[in-house]
Structures are given as C-alpha cells and as structure tokens.
C-alpha cells in the first residue's frame, strides 16, 4: 500500500524486491556496496552508492550479488553486458551518466547490437542505472543529461522517471525487461517525496503518463522538467490557459500516440528538455509531431532546453542554465497572445 517515501528509497526498494524475486539479478558498480570489503564495515555502514541509493543491499544480498567494481567503466559495463548475454540479469550502475565517455563502446557497439548482429540469438537483460541532471553545482562533467545520446542507439531502451512511484515501477520494469535499458535518475530528485506502493509492481516501458489534463496547450517534459511544466501550468491557470502535461517516462520506446492525441486536442506544443539543444529528445519529439501531427498544429513547436554550452559551476550561471517555470510562461506568451482567443 502506498506510503510517502523518497525517490531514492523508491529505487532502493525496487532493487531489493527485484533481487529477492530473482536471484539472477545482481548489482555492480563503483561503491554500490561501498567498502563492503573493509573489515570493520562488513555488515554495517557501507556507503551504498555515492548518494546512498543502494544502501543496505550488500547486507541483504552479500558480496556475490552486490559487487563493488574498480574504476573501470568499460570493464564492468562490458562484463555486465556479457553476464546478461550468458544468463544473469545485472543492474550496472554508471555513477554519473557523464562517465559514458569511458564505456560507450560497451553500450553502443556491444550491448545494444549483439542481439541484432547475432541474428536474434542472444538477449541482453541488462539495466544500466545512471545519474544525470544539472542544478547540483557539480559542474560540466557531472551534470549532463545524456538520454538523447542513448535514445539514438537502436537496441537500447531509455527510461527517465519523474516521480518516486514511476521510479519504482519503471526500475522494476527495466530489470524485468529482456533488453538493455538505460535508466536515468535525476540527482536533484532523490529527496523528492511521493506516494509509492509497498508491493512489487511494474509500469510498462513505452507508456506515457498524462501528469495533468488540459485543453489549451500540450507540454511534453522530460524527467525533472515535468515539475517545471506542472508549476508553469498552475500559473497559467490564472491566465485562463489549461495545460496538458505529458510525461513520456520512456524516450525509447516513445509513446507517440499519447503525445499526438494531446496535440490533436490542444493544437499547441512545447517540449521541455534540460539537455543541450542540439539533436536532443526535444528535437526528436518536435520533429515527430512536425511530421505526424502537423495538421493538428496551430502554432510553431517550441522547445525549452539548456543553451548550447557546458553546465557552468557558478550558481549564478547554473541557475540561468536550466529551464524554469518563468521561461515556460514567456514562451507560452509567444504562442498564445493575451488578446487572442485560445480556442481559435
């Protein structure tokens, strides 16, 4: 039954329950136990991940199933790919998605392609959990949002949850899934609270969620930006604008249907993606609608993204780097003139 827990705890619970259910599920990554091998820590106060998300797993599942790895992303992600191909169902934690630079080959050329290259004679039931997102003062190499890079790769599924309940259900779905899934966790959402069922449950990958209903405008927002959209939507009510907020939840597969239906209803689309602006998920979704939903549209498709620059360290700059409800309002006022009738 539902209780209010954090995003982080929801993830922790998902992993625990999945590992209890299926002993092929193992977890590996840097400090996912976090000192499991240190004598005086054995069954106590190991880190459980740099943010504590995997805390307690080593105690329950032991060293065989919760493996601290060396700092060798190509090594352990590649090992996880092959462990998956040979019968395990690993969860590999890539601490920050920015570190994909050290192991892209293992994801893009091995994990994502083996099944196809082998003519369907392999499957890769691997989940790669990874942290993303700006706003943590973590600067250029620890703040990127790289889901677009993975969405581009055939053979990879991409999940970006925005609430604790989605996080749990979709992590379980990812672990159960027979394909390679990259699961994104926004580091600034870990402390967010929400109601989460105690039971083991899964939410299908590829099914968008309408986080708010509305008739005048569709905002498709990714991950944390769902909350930016919801905040903006509240303020727009005062202007008489009812916003529909669509959370795709997974970018690959993308629930085109739900997005198109919303645009059909509202005739206006804004996409919010905090990634850099080029070749990102926002362009992907916009382009899809500019093709398949062109006839529904009454206005240009607007994208609200980070600028084309790395994530700056200084709070003064990082605060203007990210999308905000204010920016959304500005863009909406470009789309919908104050004096024009909405249902035009």
């Amino acid at each position, binding site marked *: 039954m539902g209780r209010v827990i954090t995003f982080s705890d929801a993830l922790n619970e998902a992993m625990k329950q999945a590992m209890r259910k299926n002993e092929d599920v193992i977890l590996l990554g840097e400090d996912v136990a976090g000192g499991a091998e240190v004598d005086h820590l054995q069954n106590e106060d190991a880190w459980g991940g740099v943010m504590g998300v995997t805390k307690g797993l080593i105690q329950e599942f032991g060293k065989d199933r919760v493996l601290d790895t060396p700092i*060798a992303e190509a*090594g352990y992600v590649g090992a996880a790919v092959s462990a998956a191909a*040979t019968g*395990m169902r690993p969860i590999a934690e890539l601490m920050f998605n920015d570190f994909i630079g050290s192991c892209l080959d293992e994801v893009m050329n091995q994990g994502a392609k083996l099944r196809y*290259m082998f*003519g369907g*004679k392999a499957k890769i039931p691997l989940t790669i959990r990874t942290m993303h997102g700006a706003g943590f003062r973590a600067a250029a190499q620890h703040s990127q949002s790289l889901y677009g890079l993975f969405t581009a790769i055939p053979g990879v599924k991409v999940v970006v949850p925005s609430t604790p309940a989605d996080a749990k259900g979709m992590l379980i779905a990812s672990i159960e*899934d027979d394909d390679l899934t990259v699961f994104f966790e926004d580091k600034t959402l870990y402390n967010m609270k929400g109601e989460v069922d105690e039971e083991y449950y899964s939410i299908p990958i590829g099914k968008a969620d309408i986080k708010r209903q509305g008739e005048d405008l569709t905002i498709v927002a990714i991950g944390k930006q769902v909350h930016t959209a919801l905040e903006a939507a509240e303020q727009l009510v005062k202007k008489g604008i009812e916003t529909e907020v669509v959370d795709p939840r997974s970018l690959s597969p993308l629930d085109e249907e739900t997005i198109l239906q919303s645009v059909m209803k509202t005739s206006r689309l804004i996409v919010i993606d905090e990634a850099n602006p080029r070749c990102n998920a926002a362009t992907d979704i916009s382009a899809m609608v500019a093709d398949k939903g062109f006839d529904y549209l009454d206005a240009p498709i607007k994208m609200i993204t980070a600028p084309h620059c790395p994530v700056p360290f200084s709070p003064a700059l990082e605060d203007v780097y990210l999308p905000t409800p204010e920016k959304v309002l500005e863009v909406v006022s470009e789309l919908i003139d104050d004096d024009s009738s909405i249902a035009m």
Partner: protein
Amino acid sequence: MGVSEVQQTNLTSEKAKWMYQKMAEIRRFEDQVHETFSKGVLPGFVHLYAGEEAVAVGVCAHLDDKDSITSTHRGHGHCIAKGCDLKGMMAELYGKSTGLCRGKGGSMHIADVEKGMLGANGIVGGGFPLATGAALTAKLKKSGGVAVCFFGDGANNHGTFHEGINMAAIWDLPVVFVAENNGYAEATPFEYASSCENIAERAASYGIPGETVDGKDAMAVYDAAERAVARARAGKGPSLIECKTYRNYGHFEGDAQTYKPESEKKEHLTELDAIILFRQFVLQNGLASEDDLHVVDENVKKEIEEAVSFAEESPLPEVKELTTDVYVSYKE
C-alpha cells in the same frame, strides 16, 4: 620454433585427430574464403585466420559447450575450434539467411552463443570485458565453465586489456586471456606499438601467471592452455598466455602486405607452418597414421565444398528481417 619438444605426450589419439581436423578445417575454410573473396563474390571486410590455427585449436581442445570464448575481428578460426557449424559460418559470410547470424552479422560478428562462441568483434579490445562477464556468470552460477578471451597484439595496448584483466584478477574469475601475437596490428609492428617485450610480461601487473609460448606449436599452446584452464576451473583465477604466431594472409582481404619482409612471409608458409608441424608431431608420436590424416584431409575438403554449396544455394534474408531482432520486445 620447431617441432614441440614435448615428445612424451598424454594427448589421446582421438584428441590429436580432432585437433588436426580442426586445424585443417580452419586452413581450408580460410583458403577458400580467400579465393572466393578475390573473385569479388564476398562482401565486406574479411580477416583471415590462416597461419594461426594452432592457437585456437590448442586452446579450445580444453573447452566444451559450457565454456565461452570471446573472439576478435579475425574470428573464423575461433568459431571452428569452438565447434561452430561450417555451413552456417560460410552462409554467414555470404550474408545468407541460413548463416549463423541469419546474415546480419557477417564475418566480423559471426557468433554462436549456444556453442559458447560469444562473437567475433569488430572492436579491437572488445573481448576483455565480455570474457570477464561470461566468467562472472560461470562463477555465480557455479557452472564450472571458463571463459577464454582471444586477443591480438594490437589489442594488448587498448584500455580494456587493463580493465578486463584487473577485474578478472581481483575477483578470481575463471578466464584465460590468450594473446595471439602475430607481430602486426594492421601494418603496425608489435615492437613499435607495445612498450613490453612480451605480452606475457604484463601478467605481472595483475598478479596472475603469464607465459609466452610458440604459437605455431599446437602442443605448446595445448599444454599452456591445459594449465591455465585447470587453474581457472579450480577457482584460482585468470591466466595470460601469449602465443607468438603469424597470419599468412594480409590484415584483411585486399591488403598487399608491403610491410612484411618477403623472407618472413615465406618462412611462415613453409618450415614454420603450424599444420605441417602438428602433422609431424602426430605422426612421430603414433597418434595417427598418414592414412588417418589423409582421410581427415579428404573429409575436410568435402565439408568445405559442401559449406560453399550450402552458402551459395541459400536464400538471402527477406527485407522484412531488416528491423527484427533489435529488441526482444519494443512497444511502438
């Protein structure tokens, strides 16, 4: 180099014949592919294993289907030594739907997971982590299996070498890392690109055994692999074996091999030929007769001819297969 000095061998006659057969299969398969390629029949990048037979066969002689291997861009020899079907292999090279990978992989991605052959790999160094992962599965599932990682002298300078071996070592995983040091990575000599004299020396960095053997001598490989596989199966962790060998053909089909001295090429096609050496060994040790080997040769010849016919006659994949098998399931 020369005939193995291990004259008292406990190799059974059966195993010796199997080894001879596999070596012959590899050689003839590759010679055939070379010929077919030169006629312009075969598409793509093709890297031939001819000359290096003693390595794949000497190692795989200790393996069965529960064991895994990871291979390289030069993977046909590993495939054959691991027991893959020659027809399915040849059809794969032709891009036919009856190929081991239904024509989707081709030479550089030829694989047969059921046989434990986890794929040729177009990425140099790609195999180190994969072998480590397969060994992790074997360890966790207590299957008794080992994983063998074949890799080239060029791959030995890639970061994955370091990461894969270190990981296998700290976790005592059942892996055998087998360097196929054929002296060149494309046109680049081993001595130029590697700061070590022998790849086996690098084992010391990981606290694991490393030895260099004559990779033209199937028995030297066989013996070293026996020790390494036994160590792995006993849960004592990985080993590294460096086999000094030579590829008879160019880096890929079409390579004029200007970088190889003529004398070197010739020597390896004659007195240093792995198959000639193993043949001598088998005969000298009474493990098989000239007649026996002749029968094997004839069978192999037939097998390869059949493989070619099979490949030629097989259908191409249907267009609708283009987008199948990307995922197990994908909600559109």
